[in-house]
């Protein structure tokens, strides 16, 4: 018991070491570029708390990141790398936009149209994830490359729609399709961007995923596949069925995130509708070592870094991609120090 407690402190020590190393490395990079590191960090972490509006922007980024990361935990549980997540978010946004466009001029109530749009988004994400799963289980295509292929197809589709059939009257451009009438947007808190409905979806997602992975047979079977697929098969777990299921579950949440980007954030379809939350979610999932309990706080932290980064060029004339550097470095050094820890504990 005592040694367990002891090794727990060692684990935490190594994690802190990783974070310090990442911050140290970022500081060096900032010094090389001649930017003031302290001010930059201050900007990234506290700049967001400056005003209510900034904080609401963090929440706007937090919700999709939270939903996507939670979904990714399901595929990770089954030992799968769902790099196709970006495409699944895109398909969610495309399907949702399609429904909204079709019903835009109908006499149905706005609530029903939005509801159908979100439902369609979920369907789109699930469908795209299912295709990656089918490529994996029946096509022999590794999910990383099948997923990338589906990501590329999704980005081709979204460009085609924006520059083709759904182009804005007059100008087709990167700024996306025509903006939907205001009644087709999720209602927001007064004066800020964030919708209470988005928060509700975020909370439901994380609770569902937590219990799916912690308290159900489905979650247990997925984890068995992730740990040792051969052993799981021998024990009678229907492996390919559960792999497909984990893809579909992840796709459902990716599609939900994509639909919420349309009805809750941008109110139209943009080529950059995902904001890179899919890949960022993969980073967050790795950083928290795939534990559902940590998704909400760490996704919030990463969303804050994103929002802090957007203001960097204005405040400090520093490029906003610094946020990506910090986000990546943190995960890299935590992985690295975790490796050192195992090395160190083994050799003792």
């Amino acid at each position, binding site marked *: 018991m005592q040694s367990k407690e002891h090794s727990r402190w060692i684990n935490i020590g190594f994690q802190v070491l990783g974070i310090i190393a990442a911050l140290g490395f970022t500081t060096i990079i900032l010094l090389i570029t001649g930017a003031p590191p302290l001010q930059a960090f201050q900007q990234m972490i506290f700049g967001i708390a400056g005003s209510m509006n900034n904080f609401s922007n963090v929440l706007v980024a937090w919700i999709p990141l939270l939903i996507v990361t939670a979904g990714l935990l399901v595929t990770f549980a089954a030992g799968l790398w769902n790099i196709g997540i970006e495409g699944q978010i895109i398909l969610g946004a495309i399907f949702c936009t399609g429904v909204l466009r079709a019903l835009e001029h109908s006499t149905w109530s706005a609530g029903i149209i939005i509801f159908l749009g979100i439902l369609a988004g979920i369907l789109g994400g699930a469908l795209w994830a299912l295709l990656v799963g089918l490529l994996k289980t029946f096509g022999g295509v590794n999910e990383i490359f099948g997923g*990338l292929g589906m990501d590329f197809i999704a980005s081709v589709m979204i460009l085609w729609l924006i520059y083709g059939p759904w182009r804005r009257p007059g100008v087709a451009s990167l700024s996306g399709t025509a903006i939907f009438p205001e009644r087709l947007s999720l209602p927001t808190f007064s004066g800020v961007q964030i919708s209470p409905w988005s928060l509700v979806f975020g909370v439901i997602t994380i609770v569902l995923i937590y219990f799916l992975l912690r308290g159900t047979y489905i979650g247990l079977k997925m984890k068995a596949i992730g740990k040792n697929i051969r052993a799981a098969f021998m024990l009678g777990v229907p492996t390919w069925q559960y792999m497909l299921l984990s893809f579909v579950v992840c796709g459902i949440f990716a599609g939900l995130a994509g639909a919420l980007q349309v009805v809750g954030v941008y109110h139209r379809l943009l080529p950059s509708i995902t904001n890179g939350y899919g890949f960022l979610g993969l980073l967050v999932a790795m950083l928290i070592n795939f534990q559902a309990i940590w998704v909400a706080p760490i996704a919030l932290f990463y969303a804050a870094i994103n929002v802090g980064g957007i203001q960097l060029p204005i405040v400090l004339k520093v490029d906003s991609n610094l946020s990506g550097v910090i986000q990546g470095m943190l995960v890299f050094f935590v992985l690295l120090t975790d490796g050192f820890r195992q090395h160190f504990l083994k050799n003792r």
Partner: protein
Amino acid sequence: MNIDFLIVGLAGVLVTAGPIVFATIGETFAERSGVINLSVNGTIVLSAMTGFVVAVTTNSLILGYLSGIVVGAFVALLIAFSSITLHQSQVAVGFVLTYTTLSLAYFLGDPFTGLQGPTLPTLPIPGLVKIPILGPLLFKADLLTYLSYILIIIAWLYVFKTRPGLVLRGIGERPAAAYIRGANVNRLRYLYTVLGGALVGLAGPIYSLGVKAGWQGTISGLDGFGWIALAITIFGGWNPLRAAFGAYLFAFLQWLSLTIQPYVSIPGQVLQVAPFPLMILTLLFVNISDAEWVGRTLARLPERPRRIFVRILRALHASPPSALGTPFVNE
């Protein structure tokens, strides 16, 4: 469409495929030894930015290319260290590094966006360029394109016709057996991962100092080529010759999509990205014969078509090095 237009176009295909040839053959070396370097997409962009910045500030093309090589080798070294020495997941570390290097490239390259930089001049080979058709097709390019031709041949000879090449294949297929026969598996894996990373790193400056000259930040249009290089490594069945064929096929698709643009009603933005999914989904043909249902379906077919299908699938088929992605611990 006249013949000159076609020759100029295809010669362009050979040049634009150059960086992908370097990156794919580099990745083939790493994966043959058992290590997946998933950082290629970010590495290429970071080395393109570094190569461009170094070439602009020193006004030396050679230093530009060398700096790209150093960047690629360094990122590969990080992957080798975390996976071989620290036993972390190669996929995890590679993905994190591809993300980080991409952001790093955009962040560090920001002050140099849009600057005018040196570019690699074309270097027609005297004499050879006079050969009808073949001359303007093959010998009217630049030095690095010629190097890419040579690399394809040398890499193929090395992997399949030399003893060190045999050892390379051995440490990726049966590391334990190779170890018993005297190969220092982990040291060789370090070597090939870093060597492969260096080749990947060279692809970056080939873009920024030639094929897609300049640095334009996030709109440089380099994001994506690394994923294609990884896909082509599989498509090529870890064979440099087939990999080169894949690189040329991809570059051809890109050229084709630009060429047909005026004749079709598909928006240009769509055509430009269309070759990417096409290339990745060709992997389906490489892998599909491994699937159980394919064997069952084939068995039901009558004799003659079955033979034909089996032959086609076998020709396309490629299986990865058995120990790809797994650490080697000698016990």
